[in-house]
């Protein structure tokens, strides 16, 4: 789905996007969603060629490429062909490529989608260290566990419009509460919760009740109904997202 611009001006570092695209792209680093590495080159050559597009001299590019390969733990695979890399390695190489011009702003489009947990945690660590070095990071993701760890400011968007913005912890506290009690979706439980007026979300076989005191509720439930599976967990951004955007499928 594409949402063309309706109004307004976008400025990056006080430069308008439509008037100074080249200067803006010089300070920008982009990690795209699809792996568009060049299969005609090996790992090292990919970084060098990309650096040449930024007008970095070849010697400097080689030094920078080696440093970056060390940063993403790919220096042994320097001469590998792209086809031999796994998904996690390709994402790391793309991260190295996005950093080749020493950007001030880094845009990451779903950086850890589809990766195994080790690769995911490695990329999170690298992003945190980059944040520590002062790089501004713009991250888009569907993986809600990423946001509280990495984000200082969060924006939830749906159909091209911003729904809420704010710090992750504040959003959770405001919209969902601190803890979530998950119980089986029996009719008696549903009626009881509706009567009591608690905040809740209903799935096909479970009810998630958002409350700050789940232990009291669990005592009540076990006294009144026979419940098989009850879980008490921390509220997460996924609950916030589902609550705000609803459950309908997108298209």
């Amino acid at each position: 789905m594409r949402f063309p611009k309706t109004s307004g001006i976008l400025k990056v570092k006080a430069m308008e996007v439509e008037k100074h695209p080249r200067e803006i792209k010089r300070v920008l680093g982009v990690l795209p969603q699809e792996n568009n590495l060049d299969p005609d080159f090996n790992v090292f050559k990919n970084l060098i060629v990309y650096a040449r597009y930024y007008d970095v001299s070849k010697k400097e590019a080689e030094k920078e490429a080696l440093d970056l390969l060390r940063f993403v733990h790919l220096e042994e695979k320097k001469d590998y062909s792209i086809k031999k890399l796994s998904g996690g390695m390709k994402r790391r190489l793309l991260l190295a490529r996005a950093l080749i011009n020493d950007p001030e702003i880094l845009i990451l489009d779903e950086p850890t989608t589809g990766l195994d947990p080790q690769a995911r945690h490695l990329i999170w660590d690298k992003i945190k260290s980059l944040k520590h070095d002062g790089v501004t990071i713009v991250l888009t993701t569907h993986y809600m566990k990423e946001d509280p760890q990495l984000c200082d400011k969060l924006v939830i968007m749906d159909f091209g419009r911003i729904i809420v913005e704010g710090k992750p912890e504040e959003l959770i506290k405001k919209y969902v509460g601190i803890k979530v009690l998950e119980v089986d979706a029996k009719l008696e439980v549903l009626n009881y919760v509706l009567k009591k007026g608690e905040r809740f979300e209903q799935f096909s076989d479970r009810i998630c009740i958002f409350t700050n005191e789940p232990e009291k509720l669990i005592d009540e439930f076990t006294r009144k109904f026979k419940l098989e599976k009850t879980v008490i967990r921390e509220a997460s951004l996924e609950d916030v997202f589902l609550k705000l955007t609803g459950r309908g499928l997108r298209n």
Partner: protein
Amino acid sequence: MKTIKVNFPIPFLEPIFYLLALGFGLGFYIGEINCVSYPAFIAPALICISMMYSAFFECIYGSFVRMYYQKTFDAIVGTPLNVDEVIFGEILWGSTKSVINASIMLLVVSAFKLVKLPDSIFIIPLAFIVGFVFSSIAMCFTAVSPTIDSFNYPIFLFYYFNVSFQRNLFPFIASSQTNSNFIFYFFSFNACILYFKRVNYRIFRVEKHIKLNMACCCWSNINYSFNKLNEEEAYNLKFSIKTMHNFY
């Protein structure tokens, strides 16, 4: 701008096969044309074929794969480069490939002693221009094609048409002194323009128009001058053969 590793030997074989099959094979049955033996008659056309082949197919299939399947263009546009610069780089690569193929073909053809070597060196800079024209036209088709299968349109309506009706392959045209082959080019071009009108335009619209106009203007001039030059070479060879006859 783009350096790509290519399997060199295989694409060179196509015009060499033409040379052997048509030139020497068919030439056994055909006598002399314009006082030049048949292989020598079609030798300049074969060099022309190798130029057109490399430039056109590189910028059709190669660029389409890079743009659509590998999404390399998207990666490059994230750097401080525009889309037109990427396209220009692709065209330059097509022209370079055409020069390389033409020079190799020239060596092969002169090894068979069909073309006089010192005079025909002039072909190599001209190969760049011819490659540029064909690459530009090919990039227009690449920009507009929705899938990789729709390249059959320009290949059969444009490329093969031009290859078959070259001045030095189609004797009917070679004998006439006027630039009547321009009419044939115009025909094939119209077929392709009809195809354009049926297809949705994409973001490359502006570049496409510029390059189409440029290619049209250069088109008949380049080919006319190029083929004229080839004929002069062939005539040079004819004279050298005549002198050789005088010796014996």
